[in-house]
């Protein structure tokens, strides 16, 4: 379907598609097998100016919105969700600085993120705090001109591969969620280290580790915004970033559909290509319908979010749930269409199915997203 993109938006799609076809797809199976971070591909993406799509021009970016990021991520997601996640996580780590950071902080960090010279990461989750952010145990205490951080963050994407970390820590335990603040920690800061690389079911080429803070001392001006603003910054960041996860579902679903249709046209059983059987045709039709419906919803949500920064949550959560549940179903169906071949690592669909699962979990589980939609409905109908 034609979504009437502008000429510039079409350029973003074309460049991202070329990177996906020429760089990502030929390497994805090996990167997955070796659980290797895609450093070279991310350099290609940086060289193509795509790391700065959402960053204002005054900080060296393209000056686009989350919709432009969505267009790039759709292509990358079609190639490999692990590579796409490494790219997207840098935006997730940069959004808190863009949303709540001081002018000096933006000047200091954004140009390097926009050029892809440095990568960012976002650190919220802990062993006892994920969906429930009030369980955060990492603390930050002001000592003279320095903040001292202690605690451990878990399952942090781009850990060890990023240079700039946006970290949530409690600065006032008595205030609950309002006692959380965000800080910029740099990879070279004293007292900051990484745990071993996690072994994952899917997105194996993305880096996931613990962040360990042991009396990690950082300058006072690394506080993002004000004290106690952390939780609000987190919520706004995730509202902005979730369409990016949703569109990974669309790109991934499209890739699975492409593989399934191509295979169904070639595979002959009972003397006919299996696409001629209605049982297969209906599966493929449902897959195509769901992919397109998801794409339309994510595009609409991303445009809404770009235009209405104070009304992001519902659209953001809706598209994340819909498109990522779709991706799980469509990739599972693609494996079914390919049958025994689909289950083999020689074909790309089993990886797609493994990769799909994380989309329903990270950046807020789909159950939490439904909570958000429900709460927003409750508010709307109380007005």
């Amino acid at each position, binding site marked *: 379907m034609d979504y009437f993109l502008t*000429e510039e938006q079409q*350029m973003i799609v074309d*460049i991202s598609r*070329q990177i996906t076809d020429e*760089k990502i797809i030929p390497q994805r199976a090996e990167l997955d097998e070796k659980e290797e971070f895609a450093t070279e591909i991310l350099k*290609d993406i940086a*060289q*193509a*100016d795509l790391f700065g799509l959402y960053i204002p021009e005054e900080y060296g970016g393209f000056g686009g919105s989350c919709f432009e990021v969505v267009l790039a991520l759709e292509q990358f997601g079609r190639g490999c969700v692990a590579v796409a996640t490494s790219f997207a996580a840098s935006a997730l780590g940069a959004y808190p600085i863009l949303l709540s950071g001081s002018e000096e902080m933006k000047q200091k960090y954004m140009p390097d993120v926009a050029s892809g010279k440095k990568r960012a990461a976002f650190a919220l989750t802990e062993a006892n705090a994920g969906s429930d952010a009030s369980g955060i145990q990492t603390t930050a205490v002001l000592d003279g001109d320095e903040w001292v951080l202690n605690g451990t963050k878990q399952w942090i994407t781009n850990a060890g591969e990023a240079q700039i970390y946006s970290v949530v820590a409690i600065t006032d335990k008595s205030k609950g969620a309002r006692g959380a603040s965000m800080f910029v920690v740099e990879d070279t800061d004293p007292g900051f280290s990484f745990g071993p690389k996690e072994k994952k079911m899917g997105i194996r080429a993305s880096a996931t580790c613990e962040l360990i803070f042991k009396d990690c001392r950082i300058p006072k001006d690394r506080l993002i915004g004000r004290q106690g603003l952390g939780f609000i910054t987190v919520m706004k960041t995730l509202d902005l970033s979730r369409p990016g996860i949703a569109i990974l579902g669309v790109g991934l679903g499209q890739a699975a559909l492409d593989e399934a249709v191509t295979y169904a046209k070639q595979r002959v059983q009972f003397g006919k290509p299996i696409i001629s059987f209605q049982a297969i045709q209906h599966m493929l039709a449902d897959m195509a319908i769901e992919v397109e419906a998801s794409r339309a919803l994510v595009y609409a949500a991303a445009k809404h979010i770009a235009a209405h920064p104070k009304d992001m949550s519902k659209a953001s959560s809706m598209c994340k749930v819909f498109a990522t549940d779709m991706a799980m179903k469509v990739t599972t169906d693609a494996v079914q269409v390919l049958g025994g071949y689909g289950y083999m690592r020689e074909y790309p669909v089993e990886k797609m199915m493994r990769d799909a699962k994380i989309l329903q979990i990270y950046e807020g589980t789909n159950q939490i997203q439904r909570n958000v939609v429900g709460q927003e409905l409750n508010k709307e109908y109380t007005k």
Partner: protein
Amino acid sequence: MNIIVCVKQVPDAKDVRLDPKTNTMAREGVESIMNPFDRHAVEEAVRLKEQHGGTVTVISMGPPQAEAVLRDAVACGADEAVLVSDRAFAGADTWATTYTLGKAINKTGSYDLILCGKQAIDGDTAQVGPGLAKRLNIPYVSYVRKITGFENNVLTLHRLMDDGYDEIELPLPGLLTVVKEINVPRVPSLKGKMKAKSLSIKTLNAADIDANPDSIGLPGSTTQVVKVFAPEFKGERAMLEGTVDEQVEQLVNKLQPYL
């Protein structure tokens, strides 16, 4: 280092069809792309510019729609683009093409280096690079797979051979034709694409380059295609020994029967 890169628009090899009546390539309705070897030449030029400074100018002889490959090259880092286009150039073989490109390059200004792909995937002659060097009276090295250095205006190179490579020094100005092993071409950048979109492309016609009408296009072409075939590689070789004079004599004796 000011570099000129010659690029050609060719039909995409993915959908090449032969016209069943004429046995020639059907070009209508086939998507056009930049000759894949030329993409490597553009990439190498941009890398040299990034290392040593200077400018990269891409030049193409072709119909007006060949502008598309020039814009692709600009999107990948070239600075300027020149289209050499005239109805009178139509039907040119490699003899007429090298004449035309040579004339156009002389009009374009000074250069240190000219880069070409080793051959185009439609004609497969591999003659335009070397022929152009002869027209411009500059030295050339073909099948370059690596540039290893640049000092005192001399490039050091590896030339790909069937059984290894030669190390060669080339004083500039000179011309290289490159093989795909030389680099991995970059994907266009967003800023590059935006620049390419708005760049005005200089167009030169037959009059602009002071071309002799008898030397261009079909009238200037002497090639007759008798048969198209892939030459068989015969692995025979002999090493000549002795002084240079003795070797030359042996070589002449070996070649004599074929003259």
